[in-house]
């Protein structure tokens, strides 16, 4: 498929990384330097120039492109270039990145003519909101309108043997309506069979109904403390969007920003949040405001180094869990080594949304795990598939696991004797490099 990507920043790079193997990509950016560093790593065509002009769009080959992903940080430029693309090539699909809730609402009311619009702030806020509901989760995502939740857990080193840990899965008392689809032990990926056991230090991926996901969280974190007080550091667009989403869930939110004007703006926009103008690096402030008693902190400062330091300082002062935004993917291992509980990459979050459009149209949703090493797909099974009407025990091992099925609107967590039917929506855990194969056979 011929795809044009507008913008070679962090989001553009994440999109290119996910798509470059199977598709013919052209990247447009005004910055020559960013483009050349991109073409060092990936085999893509690059066009230097302003994507809102006809000439540049023609140079990039809009005439025979199938998809335009406008993901530059300038939302007005994204919109203009999307409008232009629709005019120059009426058949093209366009997806647009925005950070404005107003644009998003206008699009939902079909007043802006693009095929898809996504806000990195809102998507990230929703992801964080999901994490806050599930203590001990590293990452979570919901599928099928919230009927299915996928959660990635770290099993703590100090966890004692319990109903699930250290026992073969077929004997473990795992919550009903859930399925362990992967165990990641060090570098090794295990697609678990009944004899396999979850060990301390493992990272596991669970597909479950939301109540069962919470049961898992209680089994692993061994705490069912009610979460209701969250501190957010950084009151920029990201911070205020997260605050808004959390406030809508009736959580108590405190927002901290060192910039007085920004803090004031946030305080005026969010009547229910408590806003402070203070440094995130001020231990006395943390102590004075009893930050240690909060049930979690989110760090959305603009700088990874600052996020890391502030998160560690908060941890030292007793705040858990700490959720920190990461802008540079290479900082993720540093965060983990430092002891940040959860690192979230907003670019990754929205790249997931864009990448879906380059896939088979039967795919309704994609989530990426472990920096795109694995994907979760929501895929509808075809009538012609050779696997239709086979029992699950007889399905071939292709580096993938079907975690859940949605049949006639109802969710099934399949066992060995269940049978795959045409028209089923399958929620599948798959290694990214095998995703195309799964698409082909189902």
């Amino acid at each position, binding site marked *: 498929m011929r795809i044009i990507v507008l913008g070679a920043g962090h989001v553009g790079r994440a999109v290119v990384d996910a798509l470059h193997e199977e598709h013919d990509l052209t990247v447009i950016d005004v910055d020559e330097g960013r483009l050349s560093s991109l073409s060092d790593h990936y085999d893509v065509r690059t066009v230097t120039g302003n994507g809102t002009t006809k000439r540049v769009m023609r140079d990039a080959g809009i005439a025979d492109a199938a998809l335009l992903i406008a993901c530059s940080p300038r939302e007005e430029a994204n919109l203009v270039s999307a409008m232009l693309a629709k005019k120059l090539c009426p058949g093209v699909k366009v997806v647009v990145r925005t950070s404005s809730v107003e644009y998003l609402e206008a699009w939902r009311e079909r007043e802006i003519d693009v095929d898809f619009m996504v806000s990195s702030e809102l998507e990230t806020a929703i992801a964080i909101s999901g994490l806050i509901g599930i203590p001990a989760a590293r990452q979570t995502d919901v599928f099928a309108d919230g009927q299915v939740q996928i959660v990635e857990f770290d099993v703590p080193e100090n966890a004692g043997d319990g109903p699930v840990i250290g026992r073969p899965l077929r004997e473990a008392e795992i919550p009903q309506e859930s399925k362990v689809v992967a165990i990641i032990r060090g570098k090794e990926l295990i697609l678990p069979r009944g004899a396999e056991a979850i060990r301390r230090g493992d990272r596991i991926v669970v597909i479950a109904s939301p109540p069962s996901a919470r049961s898992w969280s209680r089994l692993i974190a061994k705490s069912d403390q009610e979460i209701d007080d969250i501190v957010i550091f950084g009151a920029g667009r990201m911070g205020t969007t997260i605050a808004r989403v959390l406030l809508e869930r009736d959580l108590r939110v405190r927002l*901290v920003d060192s910039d*007085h004007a920004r*803090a*004031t703006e946030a*305080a*005026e926009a969010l*009547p229910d949040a*408590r*806003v*402070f*103008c*203070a440094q995130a690096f001020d231990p006395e*402030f943390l102590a*004075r*405001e009893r930050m240690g008693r909060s049930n979690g902190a989110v760090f959305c400062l603009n700088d990874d180094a600052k996020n890391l330091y502030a998160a560690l300082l908060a941890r030292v002062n007793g705040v858990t869990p700490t959720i920190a935004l990461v802008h540079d993917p290479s900082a993720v291992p540093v965060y983990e080594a430092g002891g940040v509980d959860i690192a979230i990459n907003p670019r990754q979050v929205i790249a997931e949304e864009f990448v879906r459009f380059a896939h088979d149209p039967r795919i309704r949703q994609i989530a990426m795990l472990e920096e795109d090493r694995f994907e979760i797909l929501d895929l509808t099974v075809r009538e012609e598939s050779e696997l239709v009407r086979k029992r699950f025990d007889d399905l071939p091992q292709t580096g993938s696991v079907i975690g859940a099925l949605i049949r006639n609107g109802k969710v099934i967590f399949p066992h060995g004797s269940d049978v795959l039917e045409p028209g089923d929506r399958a929620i599948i855990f798959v290694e990214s490099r095998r995703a195309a194969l799964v698409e082909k056979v189902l």
Partner: protein
Amino acid sequence: MLKWVGLAFALPAAVALGYGEPVWPFLASGAITVGCGLALDRITGPKHGAAVGPRESFLVVALIWLLVPVFGALPFLLGDEPQLSNPVNAYFEAVSGFTATGATVLTDVEGLGRAMLFWRQLSHWLGGMGIIVLAVAVLPRLRIGGRQLLQSELAGPTEIERFSETIRETARRLWKLYAGLTVVAVLGLALMGWSGLDPAMTLYDAVAHALSVVALGGFSSRNQSTAVFAPVTQYLLLVLMIVAGINFLRLYRVLVQRHVRVLARDEELRLYLAFALVGSVLVTFELLAGGLESGEEAVRHGTFQAVSVMTTTGFGVADSAAWGPLATMTLLLLMFVGASAGSTGGSIKVVRHLLLFKLVNRELHQAVHREAIVPIRAGGVVVEERALRSAVVFVLLYLLTFVLGALALLIDARSAGTEIAIFEALGASAACIGNVGAAFGFAGPFGSYAPFSDLSTGVLTLLMWLGRVEIVPVAVLLARSYWRA
């Protein structure tokens, strides 16, 4: 603009004609006013007049409220009225009229001619909503700079109000509502008389009291103020006072545009009603416990008097000057409450109390949470820090002026050798700066300010003027920075 005020004299002239009283004082006053207006027009001319900037608006507002009563006092002097032959007294009466204060130097109100009394009531009505608002609504020349004029003219810190319409449209709406309310009041009061519920109420009285009550003025056409009317009428007046004390911009939305929810969310309105309730309960309690009055009468008198003083009207249904210390103290405090911003009432205004209360609350919060940022909201809208500061400054200036006014009265009394009680001085000062009217002692609801010396009357006139223009425009004029480039 002045020349148009001259036209207003036509109304009492018509009344005079109707009652067979001398017409010429009004016609002569009208002629003089129109003449002066035209002369002023000639002097300023179109080349100066157009630009009314924020600076000029202070001067314009301050001067208009000084000048208009000068012409308003003309009929009193020309009419050869023995009670008002002293120019100081005549001017006091006119200022009291136009500022909707309702303080009078007359000892025998009914001794005045009907036309003369009507002119007093009409001056209330003209001044109540504001002559400048009226001018902005109808005169083309004032359109430029109208915003500043309206801001400085409307009672209370209305800069927190969002004018969604043009200034001209806003001013028109205000006057339409004002006029409509007046018509309702006239009909309501007249109905009391026609239906026989209140034999004391004539059509003339109905018009006179309607003009006075919607302006929250306080002049009455009767010696015994509203005490001569039947209880039903007093209840009707009570309701009218409460309605006229609500923000007219808000009232317009509710009554004309039918946005009823506006009222339910209105914090100022809730506080306004709460103040009225607490004040009424305290006064009634004093009346009952002190054995002064009993039953329904105590409730009616207590509530009426509390609301009358709080909304800065100043009608009297009973001689509150004779009431006990708790009632007197409550009434004095209520003088500092005032009506809502954007109403026709005077004094500090409920919204400023609201802002101050929130400000204190925030200071206490920030004493514990030093870094906390707490924007102050009124009705869901964030109030600018500047508006908060000016509310604080206003209240301080107001209290300062009040104290200085009382002090001046005492100094004058001492040097003139007359006797005045401290509470009477405080009450007169508060009643004048708050545009209430009725005070305590000899200046009570049925009393008169006549015993004051000319100098004291002058001081009180000044206080009424300061209260009506809300001090700040005058204080700005006194500041040195105003006159420098």
